[in-house]
């Protein structure tokens, strides 16, 4: 593979490669990958083309949070808050942020149009849920951000039709000086089913961590869960749904803790023991005996 003359990849192929590296950057590291990618590509135009496609996808997937220029609040860049490729809605302040994806900043903000916002009926539910979730997130996460969006049925004006809200929670801990970064993302789809008078809640929780002091170690954990509650008043629904979210997220964290306490012993032993069964270091100086007694040693070593 390496010694022969390689045909250079085409421009399109180079762009695809750059896009792939950018998209696979761990949380909070895309700018570092960007710098390295530029150096490897040695072609500003190709890089810019790749970045223009990769950054929006990355930002939405990691649900990055940007400040409004006038510090009136924050906007989360997510698939659910997207109005157009560069515009993202913040329902809390009813503003739309115009975003520069590649530099990961909000350039300016404008008030949201009526068509971009949900109806007052929907807003009651969204607002109530937002209050409860914000309270929960501020208690549970030292540095968490959250938002609630209407993704379906935002024009529903009164009871009789189904609608769907989405709760997103994101927390990132970036410590590049300690060679360690991590992120937590949860997405909760809350479907309000009018006919059955029923609210179905589906959650996807994703945790990631990256440690890179003497190497490159990454954790990637994902969990999905489901629950439901009765369709009630906006405040009661909000309370009930938030309780469900709190319960499942706490449960997941607890089971991660349990995994962590079991894993080192159970799994490491399946990979490499701390010491041989003999409980002594390997007798390297006695290599002669192995040529003669190798089979006996082998069966001793294989006993549990």
């Amino acid at each position, binding site marked *: *593979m390496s010694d022969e*003359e*390689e045909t250079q990849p085409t421009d399109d*192929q180079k762009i695809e490669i750059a896009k792939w*590296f950018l998209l*696979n*950057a761990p949380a909070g590291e895309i700018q*570092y990958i960007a*710098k*390295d990618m*530029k150096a490897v590509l040695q072609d500003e135009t190709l890089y810019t083309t790749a970045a223009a496609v990769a950054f929006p996808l990355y930002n939405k997937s990691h649900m990055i949070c940007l400040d409004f220029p006038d510090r009136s609040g924050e906007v989360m860049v997510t698939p659910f808050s997207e109005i157009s490729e560069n515009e993202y809605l913040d329902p809390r302040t009813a503003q739309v942020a115009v975003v520069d994806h590649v530099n990961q900043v909000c350039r300016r903000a404008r008030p949201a149009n009526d068509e971009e916002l949900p109806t007052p009926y929907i807003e009651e539910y969204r607002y109530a849920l937002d209050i409860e979730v914000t309270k929960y997130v501020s208690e*549970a*996460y*030292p540095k968490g951000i959250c938002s609630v969006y209407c993704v379906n049925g935002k024009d529903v004006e009164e009871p009789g039709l189904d609608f769907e809200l989405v709760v997103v929670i994101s*927390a990132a*801990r970036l410590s590049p000086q300690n060679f*360690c970064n*991590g992120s937590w993302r949860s997405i909760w789809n809350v479907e309000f089913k009018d006919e059955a008078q029923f609210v179905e809640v589906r959650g996807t929780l994703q*945790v990631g*961590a990256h*440690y890179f002091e*003497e*190497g*490159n*170690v*990454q*954790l*990637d*954990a994902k*969990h999905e869960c489901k629950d439901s509650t009765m369709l009630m008043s906006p405040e009661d629904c909000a309370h009930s749904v938030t309780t469900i979210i709190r319960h499942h*997220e706490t449960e*997941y*964290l*607890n089971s*991660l*803790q349990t*995994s*962590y306490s079991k*894993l*080192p012993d159970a799994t*490491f*032993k*399946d*990979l*490499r*023991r*701390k*010491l*041989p069964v*003999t409980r002594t*270091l*390997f007798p*390297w*100086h006695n*290599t002669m005996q*192995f040529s003669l007694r190798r089979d006996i*040693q*082998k069966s001793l*070593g294989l006993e*549990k």
Partner: protein
Amino acid sequence: MEAAMGLMRRIPPKHSEAALSALLSLLPHHSADLLSQVDQPLQVLRDVDSGKEFILCEYNRDADSYRSPWSNKYHPPLDDGLYPSQELRKLEVEANNVFMVYCDQYYEGGTSSVYIWENEDEGFIGCFLIKKDGSRTADGRRGYLEEGCWEAIHVIEVVPLEEATARYCLTSSVMLSLTTNDESSGNFNLSGSIRRQMNMDLPIAEGHLCNMGRMIEEMESKLRYSLDQVYFGKTKEMICTLRPPSEPVQTRLLEHISKRLS
């Protein structure tokens, strides 16, 4: 090149093969450096004579063929491949036999291979490799891992010094990947690699194999401990920093239970 290594340090380890491939196509003139500095998952072939598996790496490769440490033959056959000298081949054979037992004792299964070849100034380089598949479908006795793999590459450069001693420079990498999948904790994957170096000057009274073996054993123990700390310790710490376990809830629950019991 530094930028390329930077990228390899950040890309998720499970994508490292694809990443290396991409970098090799973008930087063909750096391919020798990339291939020697970036650790890749180890592959194995079966020796045609003995049926035993051997591990493939840059150090037993010539063109597109790989030399088996058991039969000393190239797979697929090669007309004028490179072979170690008779003396080194003898050492290589002994090393493979002994290392195989070491591997059994620590890994309870797994595949090992050792390759030795000449270096300048009467020195030589040895490469000791281990591949262990600990998933429940392979050699994982306790059956906890959906997928689990430990791969170690130890490259040790030996330079004879005066007065019957030699200098040993060891560079070791361990690549580790584990995945568990169950109802309550969903899909959990930890992957990565750690690399370390160790240099020692030792008397050669007991032979090179003894010295190299002891260094490798010590290094593996240190790496195993480090991996334990990093893989589990650091990532767990990160999760708890992101979302601290809700102790207030636990203490309230305990109070509630103790009140009901009294």
